[in-house]
């Protein structure tokens, strides 16, 4: 079963949450980030090229213009490959673990897998971030030897920054899978 619903990011941009139920204990939650805006792209390019033309008018050196074109091209490719995230997804498999995937605009995908033994819980945490208090979803990791303590915090959906309503949906979906851990007997 698959469903997609629109939400808003923390800055107000439209995002979409897609929920897929692969089986009773396997669920995939994908948040699609706001698209690259044509007007911001044109604004940045025009600003850089106008500045380069101003430098050319002062220095009479035509290399400035070619350097500006080169810089914008290389900068745009680097931005698409390393910065601009297209989709962030969470794959929760009940007995196995949690897989976090970030797909970039250039097509690159980076994944992290956390085995279920290390996962303590998935919670919505509030923290101070740049003069604002934000809600964000995070995975609490535990040391296999110390089940009471929290060894690490892995924040999720850092680029799409969904608002609390979207986070609550993702939280409820994850908790349904994580609760099965307590009822199903673990074989150690």
């Amino acid at each position, binding site marked *: 079963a698959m469903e997609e619903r629109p939400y808003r990011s923390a800055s107000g941009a439209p995002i979409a949450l897609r929920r897929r139920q692969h089986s009773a204990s396997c669920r995939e939650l994908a948040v699609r980030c706001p698209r690259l805006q044509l007007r911001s792209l044109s604004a940045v390019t025009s600003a850089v090229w106008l500045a380069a033309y101003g430098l050319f008018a002062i220095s009479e050196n035509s290399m400035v213009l070619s350097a500006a074109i080169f810089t914008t091209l290389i900068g745009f490719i680097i931005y698409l490959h390393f910065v601009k995230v297209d989709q962030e997804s969470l794959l929760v498999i009940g007995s196995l673990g949690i897989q976090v995937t970030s797909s970039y605009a250039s097509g690159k995908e980076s994944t992290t897998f956390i085995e279920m033994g290390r996962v*303590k*819980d998935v*919670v*919505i*945490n509030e*923290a*101070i*971030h*740049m003069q604002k208090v934000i809600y*964000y979803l*995070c995975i*609490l990791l535990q040391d296999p030897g110390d089940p009471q*303590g*929290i*060894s*690490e*915090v*892995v*924040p999720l959906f*850092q680029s799409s920054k969904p608002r609390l309503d979207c986070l*609550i949906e993702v*939280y*409820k979906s994850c*908790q349904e899978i994580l609760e099965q851990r307590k009822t199903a007997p673990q074989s150690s």
Partner: protein
Amino acid sequence: ENSPAPLPERAIYGFALFLGSWFGFILYLIWAYVPETWLFSLGLTYWPQKYWAVALPAYLLVAVGIGYILLFGINMMSTAPLNSTHTITDNYAKKQQQKKFQEEAIPALRDIPISEVNRMFFLPEK
């Protein structure tokens, strides 16, 4: 013992500070405005250069301005990042002891784990 009420000692301290600050101000004005030759003729030859009468206030004002930005920056640096455990718990919460549950008494104050708080807020109880 530590009340802010007026006392005779405090009045004396206040008056001494009042006289001292007036004295310091008049001394600063003399240093800045009285010509060097007049000071030399009085025998005061080893006073600092008059340059500092302008430089020190300028340094002080720039330091205050930088202090605003510095404090802002120090605050931002001290804020725990989003992936730190300090946003979830701290030493006091980890070492807290469980107090025994008493019937009909208000439960003791304690740091509730974030998983429990989340369940209470976001999972509807049926």
